[in-house]
C-alpha cells in the first residue's frame, strides 16, 4: 500500500498521461488507472476530482460536455500547456528517482517481491 502522502504528488501526472492518449471522462480515467497499475493503486473519487479541478484551473486540461451510453458526461482534453507540464513532470520524476535511489540502494539492491 502506497501512503497517500507519496502518491499525492503524482496524481496530476497520472491523469495527464492518460489524457495524452485521448480525451476521456471521470470514470474511464479512474478505470484506466486501475488497469495500468494492475489494481495496485485505486484513485479515490475525491482525489480524482480535486486533481481534475486543479489541472483545469492551471490550464493543463479543458473540459467539454459529451455523451456516453446516452448519458451526459464531462469529457477532459489535455492542452498544450498540459503536455508541456507532463514532460516537465516526467523529467522531474527521472531526477527524483536518481536522487532517492542513492539513499534506498536503488538498482544495486535486489527487489523484495
Amino acid at each position, binding site marked *: 500500500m502506497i501512503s497517500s502522502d507519496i502518491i499525492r504528488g503524482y496524481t496530476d501526472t497520472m491523469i495527464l498521461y492518460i489524457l495524452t492518449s485521448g480525451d476521456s471522462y*471521470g470514470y474511464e480515467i*479512474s478505470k484506466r488507472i486501475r488497469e495500468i497499475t494492475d489494481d495496485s493503486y485505486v484513485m*479515490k473519487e*475525491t482525489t480524482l476530482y*480535486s486533481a481534475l479541478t486543479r489541472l483545469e484551473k492551471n490550464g493543463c486540461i479543458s473540459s467539454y460536455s459529451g455523451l456516453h451510453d446516452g448519458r451526459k458526461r464531462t469529457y477532459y482534453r489535455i492542452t498544450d500547456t498540459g503536455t508541456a507540464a507532463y514532460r516537465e513532470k516526467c523529467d522531474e520524476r527521472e531526477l527524483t528517482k536518481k536522487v532517492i535511489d542513492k539513499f534506498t540502494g536503488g538498482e544495486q539492491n535486489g527487489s523484495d517481491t
Partner: protein
Amino acid sequence: MEAILNYIGTMFAGIPANDDTRRLREEITANMTDRFNELVKAGKNESEAVGTVISEFGNIDEVLAEMGIERNTAKPEKNISPVKEFVHKNIFSLIARPLAALLLMFAFSYWFSINHLVSVRYIDVITVASLCISTALYYICFIIRKKARSKHNEISIDARAALTKHREKNSAVVRAFGFVAATVTAVLLIMTYFLEIGSTWQWGVRIVSSIASVYFVFECAMRNEREMLDIYMENKPETLTAVQCVFRYGLACLTIAVCTHYHNMEMYDGNEETLIFMLKFVPYVAAAFITALCAAYVIDCAVLRSKMKSEK
C-alpha cells in the same frame, strides 16, 4: 444503489448549491454508479459492491478546498434539518407574503362590503393604502429573492430535495383543489359573458370570479412557503392544510358574493326582514373569520421567528 445515493447525499449536506457543486455531484454519482455496475457484473454481490464503491469515495473537503468552496454550517451539530435551514433563510418572505395577501384581500373585500353597507370615511384611502402596502411587500420579497440568488446564497442541495419531496408527497390535495378552483373561476367568468342570468347575478358572479382569480394567483404564490412552514411547525396534517384552503377560498368568495348581492337586493321590495337582518351580518362575520384566520397565520410566523432567534 439507494445506499450509494444516500451516502452521496450525506456527503454533500451543507454544501451550497451552485453550478460547480451540482456538476460535481452529478459526475461523482455517475462514476460511482458505473463502478457499482462494473463490480456487480464482475460477480460481486450488491452489498459488497456498495461497500467497495463507498470506500473509494474519499474526502469531499479535498475537492471543496480545490474549488474554493466552504460548507454552509460550521456548527458541530449535524442534524440541522434542511427544511429548517430553508425556513430560516426565507423568514421574511414567510411573514411578508401572507401579510401582503391579507391586505390585498381586504382591499377588495372592504371596498365592496363596507362601502355599500355603511359609509366609512376614507374607505377609498384605506383601500388604496392596503393595495400599495401589499404591492410593496411583494416587491420587497421579490428583490430579496433576487439578491439571495445572485449571492449564490441558495438553499443547499438537500433542502431543495426535501422541498421537492414534500411538495410531491403532501401537496397533491392542495394542488388538486387549486386546479379545480381555477377551472371553476374560469368557467364562471366565461359564463357571465354568454348566459342570460339576469343583470344582478351576472354582476355578482363577475365580481366574485375576478376577485377569486386574483386571490387564487396569490394563494399559489404563497403555497411554497406555507407548506414549508407547515412542515416546520410539524403539527399541521395534510388534510388540515386542504381544509384551510377551502375555508379561506370559500370565505373569500362568500364574503364578496353576499356583499355584492346584498347591495343589489336593497333595491327590491318585499324582502323578509329576517333575511335582510341575516344578510347584514353575514359579510361582517365572514370578513371577521378571514381576518382571524390570516391573523392566526401571521402570528404563527412571528412565533416561528422568535423560536428561530432563541435557537441561535
